[in-house]
Structures are given as structure tokens and as C-alpha cells.
């Protein structure tokens, strides 16, 4: 379980995250939506301390991530996480299977000889076959995202963080990724935190949706209740996003 308490992040005297508190329950898909620049990615990066917030607590399975002093302790907690970056953040200098198996050396005790098999298994899980030896620049946007997802789950993390998983993808690739997130949650029982602009994703597969605006969660509720929200900002944001999705 992830417990976030009074999380505050300040950039050049502007509060990007303003005293946020939320509990993310085991096994749920917790989706954060909101306009650009409201701190969604900052929240995600703060959870695993890729960014150091100014105040607050992030308690992961009883350990306050922000109170940890040494990089070794932080790394121990980070092992529980997989992270899907917005543009994949795949290493250009490595091929597909080397990318997927990259973390195994540091995060698991798996024998090096089995890395290729693990990479193949994870690539199959995200619907990719026969791409192990391809270079990253030979892949399409959707394939890159799936390879990045395979890399994020290669060490069987307990939590997976998704930063804009469907951004820049065509509707078919987007649907594949949405299904993968859902399957990952159901089959592997991972807890997912998804940051997205994709209202369809948020309202179809999420257990709960949080709407972030000006560094605060305006509302945190089930997709059904978010759809019927009485909050003006939430209603406006959802209807605008739907229109924008349709016109796109």
C-alpha cells in the first residue's frame, strides 16, 4: 500500500504539488488525470524519489520513502516498482532484449544465462514476438511503448507507475496498451498508478480516478462517480477531454 501524506513540491516558488494526501490500495488501478502542467508527472516521480519533494511523507509498505537517507535504502524500495516513461526512455545503444533485461542484473538474482528467456517471456506478455534483436530505432511508437512496458515489468514489480502510457499512440496501439495495463493488474496483481490525459483509459479501467488541478486533488473517486461529479472543474475537464478525444 502507498500512503501519501501532505506531499508538497515547489518549483521556483510555485507549489506544483500542494499538500496532497491520498492512499493507494493494493491491487488497484489508480489513475490521475488533469490539465498539463498541474503536477501529474511530478507526483509520479516523487513516489519513487526521482524528484525530492519539499515536504510530506510517502509511505510504501510501511517505509517512508522521503525519510530514507542513503541511496541503498532508496534503491531497496525502488525495487518494488516498475516505471513506464512517457516516451519509453529505452536505451538507444542496446537492442530490444538487452533493454528488457537491463534491470534484471540489479534487481533480481536471475542467472545471466536466463535473461534472454525472461525478456522473451515479457515481450510475449505485451504482445511482441520476434523483435528481441531489433534496434530501438527500428520500432514503431506503439512497439517502443510495449518494449518499455516489458522492461518495466521484467523484474515482477509490485507496483507499476505509468506516465502517459497512451500519449502519441494511434487508437489501436492505445487500446492494446489499455488492455495490457488492465491485464497486468488482473493477472500479475500489481498495483498501478497511471498518469494520463486519456479520459477513456481513466474511466474504463481505473479502480479510482483522481483529478489534479493546481497541485491539489480536486476529487478522488470511482470512475462512475467522477463521471457524475458535481464539481464544476471535474465536469468541465471530462467533457472537454471527451470532445478533444473525439476530434483527435
Amino acid at each position, binding site marked *: 500500500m502507498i500512503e501519501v501524506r501532505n506531499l508538497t513540491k515547489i518549483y521556483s516558488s510555485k507549489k506544483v504539488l500542494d499538500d496532497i494526501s491520498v492512499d493507494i490500495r493494493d491491487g488497484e488501478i489508480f489513475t490521475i488525470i488533469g490539465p498539463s502542467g498541474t503536477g501529474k508527472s511530478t507526483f509520479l*516521480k516523487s513516489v*519513487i524519489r*526521482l524528484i525530492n519533494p519539499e515536504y510530506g511523507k510517502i509511505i510504501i509498505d510501511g517505509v517512508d520513502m522521503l525519510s530514507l537517507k542513503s*541511496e541503498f535504502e532508496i*534503491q531497496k524500495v*525502488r*525495487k518494488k*516498482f*516498475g*516505471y513506464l*516513461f*512517457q*516516451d519509453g*526512455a*529505452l*536505451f*538507444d545503444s542496446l537492442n530490444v532484449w538487452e533493454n528488457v533485461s*537491463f*534491470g534484471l*542484473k*540489479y*534487481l533480481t538474482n536471475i542467472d545471466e544465462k536466463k535473461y534472454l528467456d525472461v525478456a522473451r517471456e515479457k515481450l510475449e506478455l505485451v504482445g511482441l514476438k520476434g523483435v528481441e534483436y531489433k534496434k530501438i530505432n527500428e520500432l514503431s511508437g506503439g512497439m517502443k511503448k510495449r518494449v518499455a512496458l516489458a*522492461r*518495466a515489468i521484467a*523484474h515482477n514489480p509490485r507496483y507499476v507507475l505509468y506516465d502517459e502510457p497512451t500519449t502519441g499512440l494511434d487508437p489501436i496501439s492505445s487500446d492494446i496498451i489499455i488492455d495490457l495495463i488492465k491485464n497486468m493488474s488482473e493477472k500479475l496483481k500489481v498495483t498501478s498508478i497511471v498518469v494520463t490525459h486519456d479520459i477513456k483509459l481513466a474511466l474504463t479501467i481505473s479502480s479510482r480516478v483522481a483529478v489534479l488541478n493546481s497541485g491539489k486533488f480536486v476529487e478522488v473517486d470511482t470512475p462512475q462517480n467522477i463521471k457524475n461529479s458535481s464539481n464544476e472543474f471535474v465536469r468541465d475537464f471530462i467533457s472537454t477531454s471527451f470532445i478533444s478525444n473525439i476530434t483527435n
Partner: protein
Amino acid sequence: MIINKIGKVTIDTAFHLGRCCLMIKRMFFWLFNSKLEKKEVMKQTVRIGIESVGVVILTSLFTGMVLALQSGYTSKNLFNEPLYVGTVVGFSLVKELAPVLTAIVVSGRAGSSVTAEIGTMVITEQVDALYTLGTNPSTYLLIPRYIAFLIALPILTLFANVVGILGGFLVSYIKLGISSTVYFDDIFQYMEVKNFFHGFIKTFFFAFAIATISCYKGFYATGGAEGVGRSTTDSVVISMIMILAIDYFVSSLLVIIGIT
């Protein structure tokens, strides 16, 4: 107005120096607290070293040739005979020109590429990805590059010494009619081991400086592709200036401690 500018430059310089020192501190911390990425060290040594061999050979060859030509004809004009050409070429190359020119060439060839690569990794979140995959940029990026520069530059300088001296011999023999015995006697009769070490020791300082500047500029590249381009240019310019400055100060130090 001028005071403002001076103040700003001073604060900026102090800020960058401080951040750079912290980067070096992190590098040393992880050097002793993590497993060495041997594969990456090999890869970077090949990239920085072997891929720079061609340009280093060409640079040192022509430097040796022009040194022989200039010293030979100057000596001919003064004494009617090309005297001590080997000595001039040997000493100039071994103590100064080979280490400095090789360092400058490597900073332009490999330092720029290190900055561009790390800078691109930063803006595409590949550096953040390293943290999420159980390692960190110091272990995976910094240490291998520092070691690679520290291995490659001294070896390349040795190459440059040999090739430069051979270049000088080529011109001495063909244009000045100096025999190989005289040319090489002129070098080995006067040169001592400490003269060689005077130049060789400096290469480690240059290597450390190039690695520091190129990695630092890469890690703190901002502003997308344009920013990476700017950082790459800065990295080469600063490296060149630092090489020349370090050359003077380390040479002075070596003279003081008797390695002349």
C-alpha cells in the same frame, strides 16, 4: 552594471564548480560502493580510445613533421647545418605537444560525443530510467567514462609520441638529409626517463578534466536538442581552455618536484 555582471559571473561559476564537485564526489562514492561495469568500461575505452587513434596519428604525424622542418631550416640558417633536430622534435613532442594536442583532439572527438550522448539521455529520461532499473548514472555512465578516458588518453599520447617522432624523422631524412643514427642519437642522448614522465603524468590530469567537463555538461544539459548542442560546444571549448591551463600549472608543479 559592470559590478552586477561580475557578481553574476562569480555566482554562476561558484554554482557550477560546486555542482561539479558534487558530481565528482558521487563518482568516487560509487566507485568504491558499487560493482564496476566492466562491459561498459570496455565499450567506452574502445569508443574513446580506438576511435580516436586515426585522428591522433594524423595530428601527431604532421606536428612532428613540421617541427623537424622548422627547427631544421632555422638551424641551417643559423649554423649552416641542421643541428639537434631530433632533440627539438623529441623534447617538444614528449614533454608538451603530444600530451596537449592529443588531449585537445580527444576532447573534440570523444568529449563532445560523451556530452551529446549523456545530454540526450537526460532529456529523454534514460537517466531517470537507470534509477528505476536498479542502478544509477554514476555507476553506469560516469565511472566507465572516467576510467575509459584515464586509460585511453595516456595510451593515445604514447602513440602520438612515437608517430610524431617518426614524422619528424621522415622530414629530417628526406628534406634535411639527416641519417637515422644522428636523428635518434639526438633524441636518446639527451632525453631522460623523467622527461618522458613529465609529459606522461600530465595526460592523467587532462583525462580527468575532459571526463569531468564532458560528463558534467551532459548531465546538466537543458532545453531539448538545442540545449544539448549548446552543452556539447561548451564542453569542447571549456575542455580546451582547461587543458591549456592545467598544462601550465601541472608543468610548473612537476618542475618544482624535479620531474622536468
